[in-house]
């Protein structure tokens, strides 16, 4: 350090100042308030982020009845962290292009009408179709972005009121396979683990998940865990060298569509090398083959075909890699696997999910802190809103199935319906629904908070077909692609313009309160549903008319079920930072780890672990044979296209793509191509190329990179102006009906 004359002067000056200042201050201190720092917001309220399934708690800063800023909620599970999308939440309410009033399509153009006129028309059309074609001809297509109250009401309105089981939604495209996986293995849906397990895990197995970009807050938490302890290993399995993979200790890069081989080969190694937990299997598991029950020997026999040496060539990886990660997975103190669309959006999605669960079961890496199979969710309320309320075509609320007469009877009793009200036949799942809308089987459909005309596969065909159906779309933004097929457009409220409950990945319900008024005449989706119910004279079914009343009805409904959250009252939600179910009483703190004695109130007292979802209280290990994906590289289509997401965009980009900070960062119109492929086809950075499949084509700019494996192309699906789903094949999982967005055979042509 050195003195300068300025320093000395400053020193003397400050000394003198503080002599006076000190005296003055001692007098005026009581009035010096803590809020003296210049803060933009006048008032801070709690809320939940609008975007992904992580469900981060946010503090929302208000000024003059406007949301002016957000920050992470330090007391919520995300401990004050947000991602770049969440940080820009205040922008979403200021975005241009919000729908302000209802519109009806007259002579090919949408014209402004009053709410009354629009709703009268909607009710008339519903009634007409019901009269003419019966209940099977009306449908609801919902979303994992609707509040729980809204999904529950829609589900009840259609299944109980209109007696139509055609209630499905975009979670079908997103996590149906995960839901089926959990149900098949454990008897009940929803993960048993929680985010806190990240702090206990010593091995992370990320497969088909690009968490760095899609769940940044969780991925940062994983990285924090590893920073704390370098013994913690991260294994990433992905056909692309994603940003997530760049942090991996072990990175496996198989060809798209082959990873059931990997999981089976891992099981093979575990059995061969004695890495399994016999005691756990004996006590808590049973085996199920495709043709009847079997045992560990049967499993061993089945896995003989899946030795790493046999399967590795087809996957394009080395056998030693499989052995390495199988050992790490089985022998780490606590292994946590995380996956998303890479396993779910697959024709073998359910097989992959059950196999993922099975790997945890055979190694006993389950129901301990840090050891858990956790399927990450893409939408904020797909778990709580759609899976729990049973707003899918084959489900009834709280884990019940339409197929089972007992379940139907239970629901009819709870909803106080005459026996036999609920139709015994499951409705159309999303893929079938949009076919039915095209061929006249469905004459009238209500679409809410979802953008199927961008997100469905084989879009060109679908878009042409569905124009015949009378479609009502409730949506906040006027440029959503689905509005192109709408006959009636209803302006919907967004985020904090309405009140409701979000349920995220770890079974945590969180309340989002209404803080501002929606623009123009926009209404909450719940109001629209209640209005529709009134006009269809179904008020006796839809009796709860406020979010609070619906929530009360729903928690009372859940009481006694395996989903019991009757303890999660509205008042508690207002007080606490979300609660995890099962939570059967108002004084229960919520359940961090399900099926674990001492934590989960539904486990028989005295038991350490109990998979009470199945009747015999055992989890099922399935023998799942690998079938190659229907789309394979051929002479005509030698490459495989896989679609996905980027950090700065969320879902179909209807919201995020309008925020310039995000859209400028994400870029657009790009197809990622491997260096080798680029060389082979003579493609350079920025070359205009056409990606062609048997279903459609799209012109994009090539980005030559080492990210995708050789033979693989990658395109993000957020761009509403360049619909990559026109190119994607419409094959779907036979069990979950979830389409395979991840594997489409394509060729690439220079334009």
């Amino acid at each position: 350090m050195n003195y300068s004359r300025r320093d000395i002067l400053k020193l003397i000056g400050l000394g003198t100042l503080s002599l006076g200042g000190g005296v003055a201050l001692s007098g005026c201190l009581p009035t010096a308030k803590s809020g003296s720092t210049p803060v933009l917001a006048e008032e801070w309220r709690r809320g939940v982020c609008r975007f992904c399934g992580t469900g981060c708690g946010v503090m929302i800063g208000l000024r003059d009845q406007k949301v002016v800023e957000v920050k992470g909620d330090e007391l919520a599970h995300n401990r004050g962290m947000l991602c770049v999308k969440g940080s820009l939440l205040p922008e979403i309410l200021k975005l241009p292009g919000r729908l302000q009033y209802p519109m009806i399509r007259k002579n090919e153009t949408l014209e402004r009408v009053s709410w009354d006129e629009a709703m009268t028309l909607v009710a008339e059309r519903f009634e007409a179709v019901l009269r003419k074609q019966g209940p099977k001809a009306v449908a609801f297509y919902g979303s994992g972005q609707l509040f729980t109250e809204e999904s529950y009401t829609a589900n009840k309105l259609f299944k109980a009121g209109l007696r139509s089981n055609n209630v499905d939604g975009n979670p079908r495209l997103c996590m149906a396979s995960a839901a089926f996986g959990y149900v098949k293995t454990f008897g009940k849906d929803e993960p048993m683990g929680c985010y806190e397990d990240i702090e206990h895990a010593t091995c992370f197995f990320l497969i088909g998940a690009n968490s760095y970009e899609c769940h940044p807050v969780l991925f940062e938490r994983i990285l924090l865990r590893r920073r704390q302890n370098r013994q913690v290993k991260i294994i990433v399995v992905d056909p692309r060298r994603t940003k997530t993979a760049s942090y991996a200790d072990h990175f496996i890069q198989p060809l798209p569509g082959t990873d059931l081989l990997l999981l089976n080969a891992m099981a093979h190694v575990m059995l061969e090398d004695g890495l399994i937990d016999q005691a756990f299997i004996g006590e808590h598991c049973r085996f199920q083959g495709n043709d009847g029950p079997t045992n560990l020997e049967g499993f061993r026999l089945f896995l003989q075909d899946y030795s790493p040496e046999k399967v590795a060539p087809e996957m394009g990886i080395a056998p030693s890699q499989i052995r390495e990660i199988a050992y790490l997975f089985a022998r780490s103190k606590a292994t946590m696997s995380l996956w998303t669309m890479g396993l779910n959006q697959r024709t073998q999605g359910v097989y992959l999910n059950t196999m993922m669960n099975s790997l945890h079961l055979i190694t006993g890496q389950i129901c301990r802190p840090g050891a858990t199979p956790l399927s990450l969710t893409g939408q904020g309320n797909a778990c709580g809103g759609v899976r729990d309320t049973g707003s899918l075509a084959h489900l009834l609320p709280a884990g019940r199935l339409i197929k089972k007469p007992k379940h139907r009877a239970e629901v009819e009793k709870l909803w106080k319906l005459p026996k036999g009200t609920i139709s015994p036949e499951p409705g159309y799942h999303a893929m079938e629904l949009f076919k039915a809308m095209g061929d006249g089987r469905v004459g009238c459909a209500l679409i809410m908070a979802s953008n199927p005309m961008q997100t469905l596969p084989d879009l060109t065909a679908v878009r042409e077909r569905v124009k015949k159906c009378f479609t009502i779309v409730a949506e906040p933004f006027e440029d959503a692609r689905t509005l192109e097929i709408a006959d009636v457009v209803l302006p919907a409220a967004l985020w904090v313009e309405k009140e409701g409950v979000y349920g995220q990945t770890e079974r945590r319900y969180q309340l989002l309160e209404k803080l501002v008024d929606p623009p123009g005449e926009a209404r909450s989706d719940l109001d629209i549903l209640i209005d529709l119910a009134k006009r269809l004279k179904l008020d006796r079914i839809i009796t709860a008319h406020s979010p609070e009343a619906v929530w009360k009805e729903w928690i009372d409904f859940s009481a006694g079920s395996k989903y019991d959250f009757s303890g999660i009252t509205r008042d508690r939600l207002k007080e606490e930072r979300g609660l995890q179910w099962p939570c059967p009483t108002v004084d229960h703190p919520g359940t961090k780890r399900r099926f674990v004695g001492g934590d989960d109130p539904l486990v028989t007292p005295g038991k350490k672990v109990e998979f009470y979802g199945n009747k015999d209280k055992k989890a099922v290990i399935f023998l799942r044979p690998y079938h190659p994906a229907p789309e394979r590289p051929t002479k005509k289509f030698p490459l495989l296209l896989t679609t996905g997401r980027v950090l700065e965009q969320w879902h179909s980009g209807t919201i995020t793509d309008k925020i310039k900070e995000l859209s400028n960062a994400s870029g657009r119109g790009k197809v990622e191509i491997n260096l080798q492929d680029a060389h082979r086809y003579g493609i350079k950075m920025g070359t205009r190329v056409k990606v062609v499949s048997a279903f459609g084509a799209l012109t994009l700019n090539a980005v030559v990179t080492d990210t995708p494996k050789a033979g693989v192309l990658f395109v993000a699906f957020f761009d509403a102006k360049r619909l990559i789903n026109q190119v994607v094949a419409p094959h779907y999982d036979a069990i979950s009906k979830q389409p395979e967005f991840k594997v489409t055979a394509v060729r690439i042509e220079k334009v």
Partner: protein
Amino acid sequence: MDITTAIKIIGMVVILIGIILCIGVSKTSLYSPLYKRIAPLAFLVVPFFVVALGNYHVLEGSQKVSSCVRCHVMAPMANDMMDPQSTTLAARHYKNGWIVSKQCFTCHKDYGLNGTIKAKLDGFRHLVKYTLRTYEEPTRFVGRFNNQNCLNCHRGTPNFEAIKSHHTIRNRLETSQTNCTHCHGFPHPTPLERTPGTARYDELMKGEMVHERRRP
């Protein structure tokens, strides 16, 4: 010897002189010529220097980590920072030696001599609250997180510039509208961990007394 220690020692000497002068004043008659010579020194000149040096000591001497932890509410922050197991931003900066000395001050630049008047006033307010015990634990940060404290070092580094969204939200970052901590984790233990009565709180309070770390 750094300047703050020098100031400290000079201060102590000046005070001793002041005390001697003061005693001298009390020994002399009010009307003696000696009084007229000593009194202005004892009552005006020496106090002036003592106050100046003392304030310098308040503002600059307190930049050391060791002086920050003297406050019991700051102990969890410092103990956490010294904990190699911890993953808070402070702890990571510390254990990796990204900041060599004055670890608290380097990221909280506001409170030094060059900081704003507002920071000074805040400091005085905290001092009063602390001495009079009119605060509650866990203490909470009520102001706006100042990104400049991060950007001072990180701005312009390749890792920072490589992230596209850093460019697109640059304005928001510069004006602290979007906090660095949103995406990059919490700088210190969260209020939840610093709540008395919890196990984590006891752990955080137990840490050993800290010394400034220097590179050899």
